[in-house]
């Protein structure tokens, strides 16, 4: 059975890019070290050998120009995939992302289409310290004009990446560095997962956990542990953070009446705040407890594994959050 073929998260990304490049000659990739080297995380491995230097382009260390390349090439009709090695580097290219890519269409009164995908790698867990470990998705989700995707597993990675490439708006595909080696069955054919559609990873009745990227997997572990304690968790992975699948989240909240939102990012001002706010706005009368937010404490990501391991939320902290919410009456 072909569905049983397994790919890693990194391979799923690679296959999505490869299949879309085969299907559409307007798709190209550009970024630092993505050519001969295949990207520092190997996610672009083999693509230059397959598609040539014209379509898989090594660039200078120039994040602003890399994103600008995507803006200019997409607005003149190509379908660029531009890579920013680490998510932290969105800060270097922030003007091109926020003030150009996201706004061009609107500022031009609609007279522009930007089918570009920005790919990057976020998250901690590699002792890469404060400038190579951040989860900055909340910054992007606040900017009208962008779509933001954070897959939690290989299947979603392939489907979402294909949808990003096909999408006629600027999307940001955030790979999680700690998921790159995660392996799971991935269909060989090209399939899309609609942007803006979340997924019920695990149905449950007692409490809803909304979690994305690596935290979705931590939520699965937490749910297993909690099941043994008799707590039946429903896990929702929004997959796309902008636009957010509010309906799916609200329906679940109305069913379980208790919600924990888990993110790896710093808790203050993170996407969890938006999700929690929406839930209390739209399901206020259904809530038996405040929506609880799990996230990193208010500090940069520390280097030492002794600190970082305690800094990043995990199954344990999610389980504790769920227990606290369940204890509330």
């Amino acid at each position: 059975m072909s569905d049983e073929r397994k790919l890693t998260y990194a391979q799923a990304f690679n296959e999505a890019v490869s299949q879309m490049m085969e299907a559409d000659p307007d798709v190209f990739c550009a970024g630092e070290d993505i050519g001969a080297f295949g990207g520092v995380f190997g996610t672009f491995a083999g693509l230059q050998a397959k598609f040539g230097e014209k379509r898989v382009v090594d660039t200078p260390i120039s994040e602003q120009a890399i994103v600008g390349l995507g803006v200019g090439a997409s607005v003149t009709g190509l379908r660029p995939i531009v890579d920013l090695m680490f998510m932290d580097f969105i800060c270097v290219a922030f003007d091109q992302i926020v003030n150009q890519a996201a706004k061009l269409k609107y500022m031009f009164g609609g007279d522009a289409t930007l089918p570009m995908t920005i790919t990057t790698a976020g998250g901690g867990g590699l002792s890469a310290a404060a400038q190579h470990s951040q989860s900055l998705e909340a910054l992007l989700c606040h900017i009208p004009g962008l779509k933001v995707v954070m897959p939690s597993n290989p299947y979603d990675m392939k489907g979402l990446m294909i949808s990003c490439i096909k999408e006629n708006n600027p999307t940001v595909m955030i790979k999680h560095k700690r998921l790159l080696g995660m392996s799971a069955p991935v269909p060989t054919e090209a399939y899309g997962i609609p942007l803006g559609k979340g997924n019920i990873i695990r149905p449950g009745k007692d409490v809803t956990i909304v979690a994305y990227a690596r935290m979705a997997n931590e939520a699965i572990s937490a749910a297993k542990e909690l099941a043994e304690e008799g707590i039946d968790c429903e896990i929702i992975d929004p997959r796309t953070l902008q636009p957010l699948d509010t309906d799916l989240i609200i329906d679940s909240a109305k069913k379980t009446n208790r919600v924990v939102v888990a993110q790896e990012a710093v808790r203050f001002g993170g996407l969890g705040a938006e999700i929690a706010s929406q839930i209390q706005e739209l399901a206020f009368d259904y809530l038996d407890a405040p929506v609880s937010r799990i996230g990193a404490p208010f500090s940069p990501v520390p280097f030492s594994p002794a600190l970082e391991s305690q800094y990043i939320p995990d199954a344990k902290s999610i389980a504790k959050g769920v227990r606290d919410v369940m204890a509330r009456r």
Partner: protein
Amino acid sequence: MDFSSAKQFDLHRRMVRIRLFEEAAGRLAEANKLPGFLHLYVGEEAVASGVCGALNDDDHITSTHRGHGHLVAKGGDFNRMMAELMGKSTGYCKGKGGSMHISDTSLGMLGANGIVGAGSPIAVGAAFANKYRGRGQVAVAFFGDGSTNIGAFHEAANMACALHLPIVFACENNEYGEFTPRDKTMAITDVVDRAAGYGMPGVIVDGMDVIAVHEAAVEAVERARQGGGPSMIEAKTYRFYNHHGVQNLGLKYRSDEEVAVWKLRDPIFTFEDRMIENGVATRANFDDIWAELRADIDNAIQFAEDSPYPTPDQITVNVYTSMTGAN
């Protein structure tokens, strides 16, 4: 190079169109009829005209905060431009962009830009696409002297050279960034000195002389079109009005003498004198042209004033393209 009289009239017409549009916009702004900021191109007409006169319709340009001149030179429509400046729904950007984002992608004009330096990386992207498609199109990045101090310019120039793209970097050196003279913000006199650091050729031209600009542009554009890679043109020019708007905001950052000396070199009037001298045109020719284009401007103002404002339901329209791609 020797240009045909038709070409000379073409360049002249582009300049006059810019001048008339900008002066009309200035008068409307003084009468409080234009919302927002307004950066006028008056004085610099020879640059946009000389360069865009060397381009095909399907070539691309990126622009700056001072973008009307570039759009006019690329063939922009007065009606839609004036309507945009007034924030009307019939404007180029349906009233959503205004002066600082005026654009017409069908003319290859990829937008004025409110962020100094941000247009150049976008031009690099357009140049990349042009090379990728191999249809011989070229991209031009217009930018000011002040913008060459910002990182985006640098990255764009270097990347264009590293990837050997068909692009021309066209610098409008008017010696000021807003109200601060060049010598306070850079230790060099000629912006073109930066070209060598990227590995591209560069030339300085008299930005008040449309023929000089045009000659340099033809050469640079042809080089790009033939696969010869990027190059830079630095046009020494001057803006006759203030950084934005018309008045000097009461504060003098340039001397009256300096302004007066530059005005003597008005790119349009000196060119008209030359065309008459060379027997290419008569004063009557020019009178006709100005009259015709003045009528166009009057019509455009009328069109814009008669046009409706966008309705509030339009606020959240055009944020996204709704359909997904073709595959």
